[in-house]
């Protein structure tokens, strides 16, 4: 299947949100997506982008039809205090009907190229431990499970805890 990869533009925010929700639905978490198109626009296409996206699109049925956005990868840059810049792959999804056609590999290749061009020393991402197909997809390409090899565990302070910590304690 013919497809094209390109940088996301402001016009893509509704497709990005659609795909974010589709992936969340697949994880049975659709109700947890509270982000809006407006957030995506401000956060991704303002003065300081907080994320970047690569879009995969397939051509329309004929020349009069718009191309369809069928996959995306959302990433940003992080910083490792030992080695410097890293590319962090936050979200990566290709619509079911377009799987197995090399789009995923194409996206990963594009991201690898980008990481090299921007002088990143590695690419990081999290995978759910029970997502065997994804774990294998990444391991086949040389990914290492740092949680396993180095014992890292991901922690979170949610908003309530942050507010509690930010507020001075009552004397």
């Amino acid at each position: 299947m013919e497809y094209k990869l390109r940088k996301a533009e402001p016009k893509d925010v509704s497709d990005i949100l659609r795909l974010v929700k589709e992936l969340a639905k697949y994880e049975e978490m659709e109700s947890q997506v509270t982000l809006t198109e407006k957030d995506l626009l401000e956060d991704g296409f303002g003065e300081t982008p907080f994320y970047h996206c690569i879009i995969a699109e397939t051509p329309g049925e004929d020349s009069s039809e718009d191309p369809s956005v069928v996959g995306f990868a959302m990433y940003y840059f992080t910083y490792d205090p030992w080695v410097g810049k890293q590319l962090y792959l936050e979200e990566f999804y290709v619509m079911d009907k377009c799987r197995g056609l090399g789009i995923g590999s194409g996206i990963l290749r594009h991201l690898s190229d980008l990481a090299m061009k921007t002088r990143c020393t590695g690419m990081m991402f999290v995978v759910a431990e029970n997502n065997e197909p994804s774990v294998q997809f990444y391991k086949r390409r040389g990914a290492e499970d740092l949680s396993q090899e180095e014992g890292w565990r991901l922690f979170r302070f949610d908003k309530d805890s942050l507010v509690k910590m930010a507020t001075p304690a009552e004397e």
Partner: protein
Amino acid sequence: MANFVLRSAEPKDVADILRLIKELAKFEEMEEKVVLTEKDLLEDGFGDHPFYHCLVAEVPKDQCTEGFSVIGFAMYYFTYDPWIGKLLYLEDFYVMQEFRGLGIGSQILKVLSEIAVKTRCSSMHFIVAENNKQSIEFYKRRGAADLSSEEGWRLFEIQKQDLVKMTAK
């Protein structure tokens, strides 16, 4: 009680930041893995587009036996969750041994929480080594949840040599 100040790092702090990064790495027996230089830290943190931010903790010079004034730091940056938006990511967090137990760590965390709330972040994320019981307790006491435990997330990495391999395919 230590007399200390917390402030945003400035370009002049890169030597101290690197020293503390190496000290923390040494504690993890990984000092030789720190290949970052002061020049990298300067370009990456104080250029047009900062890739990280730092808070530094400073004491009057005569208070530190080794003669340093910067005795602790936290390195952080902003990340993005596609369900809820901006997050604050705490990358490195270290206070010199001599200055532990004096509330400096708690204060750093408090300032980071304020920054997170002000910049409209939905939460703060960070990783902790599973065998670092002290740190785990420090964070859990303040309400942190172990997402690796609760949600089964595992952190993966593709290193440079494998990225290069993929670009060649």
